[in-house]
C-alpha cells in the first residue's frame, strides 16, 4: 500500500485481480503491487463484505481506499479488478469481460468448477492478458494460440518423460 497509495500514473494500471465466489471463497488472486500476505487477506476480507453485499443493478464500481474496485458478476463468481482513482473504469470492465470471454472460449462455456480444478490454467490465461497490471494482448485468438502452444509443449514434455520412464522401466526389468 505504502508506495502505491499515491501513484499518479496516467496509465491504466491494475493493482490486483481477485475472483471470489458468492460464498466469499477465493478462486483466484493476482497481485500486481506488493502487498504482504497479511494485507492481502485483509483486502480480500474487506472486498468480500463490500462487493457481495451490493445489490444487482447497481453500478459496478466501488470506491475503496482511494482506489476503485471494478467488479462484475458472472454466474456465481465475482471478478474484481482494482484500478487507480483516475483510470477508466469502463475499460476495466471491458477487460474483465474480455478475460471471461477468453476463459469461456478456452474451457468451452466456463463454470466455477472449471476454475477450481484448473485454477492454474486460469492463471496462465490471465498472465497472457495482463502483465504487471498492464494490458498485454487484446486478441482472444492470439491469447488462446499462445496458451495452446504452451500446452502442447507441456504435453510433448510429458510424453517424452513417460516414454523415457517406460524405456527406463523396461531396461531395468
Amino acid at each position: 500500500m505504502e508506495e502505491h497509495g499515491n501513484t499518479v500514473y496516467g496509465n491504466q494500471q491494475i493493482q490486483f485481480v481477485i475472483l471470489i465466489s458468492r460464498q466469499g471463497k477465493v478462486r483466484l488472486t493476482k497481485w500486481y503491487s506488493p502487498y504482504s500476505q497479511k494485507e492481502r487477506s485483509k483486502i480480500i476480507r474487506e472486498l468480500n463484505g463490500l462487493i457481495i453485499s451490493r445489490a444487482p443493478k447497481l453500478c459496478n464500481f466501488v470506491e475503496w481506499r482511494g482506489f476503485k474496485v471494478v467488479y462484475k458478476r458472472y454466474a456465481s463468481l465475482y471478478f474484481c479488478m482494482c484500478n487507480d482513482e483516475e483510470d477508466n473504469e469502463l475499460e476495466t470492465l471491458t477487460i474483465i469481460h474480455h478475460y471471461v470471454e477468453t476463459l469461456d472460449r478456452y474451457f468451452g462455456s466456463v463454470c466455477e468448477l472449471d476454475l477450481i480444478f484448473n485454477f492454474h490454467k486460469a492463471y496462465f490465461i490471465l498472465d497472457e492478458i495482463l502483465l504487471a497490471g498492464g494490458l498485454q494482448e487484446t486478441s482472444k485468438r492470439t491469447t488462446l494460440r499462445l496458451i495452446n502452444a504452451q500446452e502442447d509443449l507441456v504435453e510433448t514434455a510429458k510424453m517424452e518423460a513417460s516414454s523415457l520412464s517406460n524405456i527406463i522401466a523396461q531396461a531395468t526389468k
Partner: protein
Amino acid sequence: MIRAIRACKTAAEERAVVRKECAAIRAAINENDTDYRHRNLAKLMFIHMLGYPTHFGQMECLKLIASPGFPEKRIGYLGLMLLLDERQEVLMLVTNSLKQYPVYIVGLALCALGNICSAEMARDLAPEVERLLQFRDPNIRKKAALCSIRILKKVPDLAENFINPATALLREKHHGVLITGVQLCTDLCKISTEALENIRKKCTDGLVRTLKDLANSPYSPEYDIAGITDPFLHIRLLKLLRVLGEGDADASDSMNDILAQVATKTESNKVAGNAILYECVQTIMSIEDNGGLRVLAINILGRFLSNRDNNIRYVALNMLMKAVTADGQAVQRHRATILECVKDSDASIRKRALELVYVLVNDTNVKPLAKELIDYLEVSDQDFRADLTAKICSIVAKFSPEKIWYIDQMLKVLSEAGNFVKDEVWYALIVVITNASELHGYTVRALYRAFQTSAEQETLVRVTVWCIGEYGDMLVHNVGMLDIEDPITVTESDAVDIVEIAINRHASDLTTKAMALVALLKLSSRFPSCSERIREIIVQFKGSFVLELQQRAIEFNAIIAKHQNIRSTLVERMPVLDEAAFIGRRAGSLPGAASTTTVPSVSLPNGVAKPVAPLVDLLDLSSDDAPAPSSSGGDFLQDLLGVDLAPASQQSGAGQASKSGNDVLLDLLSIGSASAPTSSSTVDILSSDSSNKAPVLPLDDLSSVSLSSKASSNAAPMMDLLDGFAPSPPTENNGPVYPSITAFESNSLRLTFNFSKQPGNPQTTVIQATFTNLTSNTYTDFVFQAAVPKFLQLHLDPASSSTLPAAGNGSITQNLKITNSQHGKTIFGVGHSTLSEIGHNDLDSSIPSFSLFVLCEYDYGVHLLILFPKTFMWFMYISTKIFVYECQSQILPLKASFRCRSIEEIVCSKLYATLNMQNYVVQRKFIRVKVCDVWPQY
C-alpha cells in the same frame, strides 16, 4: 485433493485435510522428490489460495524453475508469482531464464519479472529487457514492454535508455505490441520530460494516424468487441494523446480532428463504446482548449448522465467533477440531474453526486440546493447520512447569506440527523446563536419546538439545553418575537421539563447530562419558582457514579442551598452578564470557529468597567493557573490557593466538564455557563481561560501574559476581598504538620501510617507503618509490600517482626522511605497539556507501568487518577495504596482503603471510593481536575 477439500463440510474438516496435505508435501520436499514436485507445488498454490501458510514451498518454486523441462518451469513460475512477493529476495535465480530458449521460457521469465520484480532486480535486468524489446517474436516484445513499465516504476532514472526502443514500438502493426508500446510511452512521458518532448515531437502525428486507421478500420473479428475494433487500443491511444496534448497547443491542435471524429462516431450503446467516449472526453478536457470540442464533450457527459445504466452515470459524475474547473457553467446546467443522482439508490453514485453538488454550490444557488439536500436528508439511508450531514453543514456554514437562514437550516439538520453532526459544527452553531442577539428568543423557541419532535437527536438536545439554560427567560416571556413566528406559551416548568427530559434521557451521554446540569443551575436563578424543583433534580445526581456529574451536582447543590447570599446578587447581575459574555467568548475563545469576525482578545480583560471584574478575573486566573504554580511562579499564587476560593473552585471544577481533548470549545462554553451565576465577570475568565487551555489559539501568548502580569499587581486587594467573600475561613496550609492516618482497616487488620520528614531533605518522607492484628489468631510470616509510581523511590526497611500477635496484643512496625524525585516541581498541569508533568513524559508513546495523576486535591486528601496501561481503564483512587503523594510540600493523608485483585474489583473499588468522597467534596480547599484525553464511559 481439491475434491477432498471441496467435500469438507466444516471449516475444521477443511483444516484437517489441508494439514494432512501440507504434511505430505513437506515430507516430499524433504525427500527431494522430483517426480511429483510440480504437482505438489500446484497443490500448495491451491492451499495458498485458501489462505493457509505456504512459505515452506517457496524453495520448491525455485527448484522447479531451475529444472530444465518446460512444464516444471511453467508451474514453478506460476508458484513464484503466487507464493512470493518482491520482498523476498530469492528472485535472482529466476533471471537466467531470460537468456534462454525456447521463447516461451523467456516469456515466463518476463511475466514473472513484470509481476514481482524488485528495484534491485529491475536495475540488474534492465539491459536484458531492453534487448528483448527488439526480439523477433512479437509476444516477447509486448511482454518486455510491460516489464519495462514495471522496471521504470521501480527505477525511474532508467527512463532514458528506454526512449528509443519504446518509440520504435509505436510503429508496430501487431496490436499486442502496439498497445504495450503505447502504455510504455505513456509511462515514460510521465516519468521524464525529455521522453515527453521526444515522443511529442516524433510520434504525435503517427499516433493520430494510427488512431484514425483504427477508428476507420473495417470489421475484424479478431479484435472486435461489440462492433468496435479493439477498444482497448483506442483507449490507450487516447490516453497517450492526452499526455502529449496537455500543455502543448500544437500537439493538441493536431489531434482535434480525430478526437472530434471519435467523439461523434463512436457507438454509445455498449460498454466498450462508452469506455472509448469516456476516455475521449477526458482527453478533450485535458488537452489545450478548443471550445467546440469542449461543448461536444460536455454534451456527451450530459447524455451519459441521463443514461439508464448506473455505470455510465457514475463515470459521468466522475468526469463532471473534473470538468467543473474547466467549465463550471456548463456543468451547472446539469445541476438538476446531478441532484437527482444524490438520491440514487446506489451508494457509489450518491457519493460521487454529493461531492459534485458540493463543488457546484455557490452564493446564488445555495438556498435551493441546501433545501433539496436537507429535504432529502429526511429519507436518506442511515449510512449515507453521516456524509450528507457533514456536507450540508459545510455548505450552509460556508455560503449562508444571513444568520437566521443559517440557524434555520442548522436546526433542520439537527432535528433530522443530529446524531451525525460533528462537535465542531454545533459549537459553531452555538457561537453564531450567541452572536445573533436579536435572534435569541427566536432560536430558543425554535429549538423548544424542535425538541418536542426530535428529542432523540443528541446534538439537538445539547444545543437546546444550552440555549434554554441561557435564554430560558426569553422562551417563557416570548422575548424578541419575530413576525414569522407562531406565538407559543411556555411556562417556567415547561422549560425545566425539557432539561429534565434531557438529563434523564437514557441515551444522553456525559456531555449532554453535564450541560443539562449547568442549564439547571442557570434556570434555578432565573426561575425562582422552580428553584426547589431544580434542586431536587440536581440532588439526584449527587449519587451519580459518574464523577463529573456527581461533582457538578454537589457543587451546584451547594450554590443553590448554601450560597443564597451570593446567589441573590448573582441573579441581579445576570442580564448584564450575558451580553458581555458572548462578546468575550466570541473574541477570546472562538476565533474562526464560525464565520464570525474575530476581535483581538487582548484588549478584553481590561474592557470591563465594573470594579469587581478584574478581581474575580484574577481569582479565576489563579484557580486555573495555581495548579501550575511552578516553583518559580511567585508565592502569592500559592497563597491564593490557600484562600478558600469557593466560587472560583466551582468554576474551575465545572470548567473541566468535558474530558476529551477536542472538547476545548465545549469546555469553554460550560465554563461560561457554570460561572455565570457565580460572578458577573466571567467575561474575562472566558477569555483568559481560553488562552490558557487552548494552546492552538493564536492569541494565546499575548493574552495569558497580560493576564498574569495583572495577577501579580493586584494580588493583595484580591485576597482581602476574597476573605470577605468566602463562607468559611481557610483552615489549611499551616505548615508541615502531618497527621497520621489509618490507611487500612478491616475486622482482621489495621494499618496506620505516621509521617515525618527529615529536616533539610524535603524530598524524602518517612512513613512508619504500624500493623495491628484484630483477630484472635496470630499471623505468622506477615509480609507487607508496597508499590509506588516511577517518579517516587521507595525504600522499605525490614519489618520489626514477621509475626503479628492476635487480638491487638502487639504490632509490627516497618519504615518506608519515599523520595519524590519531582519534589518542588510542577505536579499539576493546566488544561490538556500536562499529563507528562508528573514525571512520565510521552504518555502516548511509552506508558509506564502505571501513572499517577492528581485529580483533585481536597483538604482531606488527594483525589488521584491512575492509568493502567494494559487496559486503559481510568479509575479514581483514594490514596492509601500509594501512601504519600507530595503536593506543595504537604502530605495529604486520606481515609479509605483499597485493595484489588482484578480489574473488576478495581472498578468496584472506584465506585466505593467515589462514594466515600462525598463527605469531603464540599469542603475541599481547591480543586484541580486533570483533563485527560480519554475519559471512561462507564
